[in-house]
């Protein structure tokens, strides 16, 4: 672990968003996430320990003393990440990369944007026997710890996905209103979780990032076996190469995806589905833009 996860995420985000996202990330006059304007309160003298990034250089130049911008404490936003760290997230994504890496990248993206804006990020993850929870903090170390917790919890040995427990937990432990980013896969949150999700939306501004699963048939790659992390069984080449099976499987996945999409739309939850690590940054930027547009219109 030579480089920190956050640094790596930043590198990826910068790479992907060099031009298109610059406007989103820069420009302190408007928030990427919600509303506009930052609640500038006052200028104060720089004290050791203050963030250097908050030094107002123009004001410093004018006065000859280092001055920093003072923000209204109350208006500091709280973000929360609800990460599905079940074994399913350790599997392969639709683009062939690891779903976990895609999830880290998505979470890292949130952290990255939060860091830019000085927002605080908390984490809810884990399973019933091993819950993971991190309070809202904004320091780099905290963000790094957050990402690392997600990474380490997501193994093939992790418990099976239990989205209702996770949503219930997320509702109970975050009493403050947050911008909540739920990161899960294409099977979650299930249609059964409608009530839980609706209860979450009453308190939080919810975004759902879904990472698509790899095709369980892998028709083009018959040399490699396909193993389900939760149901290790052999899928015969005969079944994998059959056109009819492929058609039926595709139909089922489409129906499941449509069902969840319809549910999330009904809850007015911003959501997206991405095929994996290679596309998650682009898709998130697209989602945030459309979300911003929607808020601007509203």
């Amino acid at each position: 672990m030579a480089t920190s996860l956050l640094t790596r995420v930043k590198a990826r985000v910068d790479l992907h968003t060099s031009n298109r996202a610059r406007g989103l990330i820069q420009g302190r006059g408007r928030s990427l996430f919600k509303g506009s304007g930052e609640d500038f309160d006052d200028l104060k003298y720089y004290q050791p320990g203050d963030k250097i990034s908050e030094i107002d250089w123009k004001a410093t130049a004018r006065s000859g003393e280092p001055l920093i911008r003072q923000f209204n404490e109350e208006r500091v936003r709280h973000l929360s990440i609800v990460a599905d760290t079940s074994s399913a997230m350790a599997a392969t994504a639709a683009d062939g990369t690891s779903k976990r890496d895609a999830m880290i990248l998505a979470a890292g993206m949130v952290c990255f944007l939060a860091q830019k804006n000085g927002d605080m990020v908390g984490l809810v993850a884990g399973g019933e026997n091993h819950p993971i929870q991190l309070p809202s903090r904004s320091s780099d170390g905290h963000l790094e710890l957050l990402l690392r917790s997600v990474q380490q919890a997501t193994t093939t040995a992790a418990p099976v996905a239990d989205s209702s427990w996770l949503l219930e937990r997320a509702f109970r432990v975050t009493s403050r209103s947050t911008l909540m980013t739920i990161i899960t896969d294409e099977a979650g949150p299930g249609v059964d979780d409608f009530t839980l999700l609706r209860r979450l939306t009453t308190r939080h501004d919810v975004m759902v990032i879904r990472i698509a699963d790899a095709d369980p048939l892998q028709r083009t790659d018959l040399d490699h076996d396909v193993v389900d992390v939760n149901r290790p069984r052999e899928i015969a080449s005969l079944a994998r190469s059959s056109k009819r099976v492929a058609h039926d499987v595709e139909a089922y996945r489409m129906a499941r995806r449509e069902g969840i999409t319809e549910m999330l739309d009904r809850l007015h939850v911003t959501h997206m589905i991405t095929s994996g690590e290679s596309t998650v940054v682009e898709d998130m930027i697209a989602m945030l833009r459309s979300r911003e547009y929607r808020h601007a219109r509203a």
Partner: protein
Amino acid sequence: MVMTFWWVTALLLLAALAVWAITFWNRRAMRKAPVLVANSQYLDRIPSFVRAQRAAKVVRVLQVGIAVFGVIAGSVLSGRIATERIETPDFASRDIVLCLDVSGSMYEYDTEILSTFAEMVDSFEGERVALTIFNSTSRTVFPLTNDYDLIKRELEAGAEAIDFDEFGYRLGTRNYPDEKVRKYVDFVEGTRGIPDEASVVPDGLASCGQVFDQAETDRSRSIIFATDNEVNGEPIFTLQEATDAVAAREIDLYTFYPGAYECGPGCFEELKTATEDQDGELYESSDPEAIPSIINEIQKTQAQSMGAEPTVVRTDHPGVGFVLTFLSLIGILVLGWRAR
């Protein structure tokens, strides 16, 4: 049922077992890293998938079954399943010399004797046959042999060639095409060694007695001696001497007397006495059906076993093993192609 190369079968089965064991222990190493997927439990609710899985399982079981079956069938085939029979060769211990008088007085009978004999060749089992013809001198047409194709060919050719009325032709009362004449001349070539003599019967019989080879082995030896005994010349042997010589070599004599031509009963009596003195048989008939009964008689004189050792005769039965191996190979190919 025995296996000639049972150890080949054992080795092949062991090798197959070893190959299976090696692949079994290394089955993980040979597999490429699997693709991990998630949320595929729904597959069990898709009927076509369940059907395909079941079909794949059936194909797999069939493949394994046929492969095992094929290996076993192939090994058994390689082992050469055979049946063993202990056999004592009881044939090839009889020698028959056809000794024909081809003087002009005999031509009608000779034709019938030869063609009758030619028909009987098919029923022979290892008997050796020779044909010697004589008139004033004698000629061996073919020596003792069990090449039945040759025997039959020669006998038929002889029967056709000897069907020639020489007296009639000389007197001009019978006419024959040149081809026929040439065949006759070729056939009787060497039987007129002494001019102005014909049918030197005792000398002819004596030279027939010389045809037998393998004098030291214990074989049944017979001469079928067809003559009318009408001697026109000065024989070296008397008939009595000739039959004595034949008997001394333990040769059974079967004399065939077709009937008188010019000579009176004296010739017949002489022949009969000479034959029966040596315990020979005389058949007095112009009926060529006498020949088969002579042959029967000969075949009844079962030659004593030549001290031949009983031999183990091994017969391979590759048919079943081959078909099974072949079918299982086809099965493997078809199933392998289907499962891909």
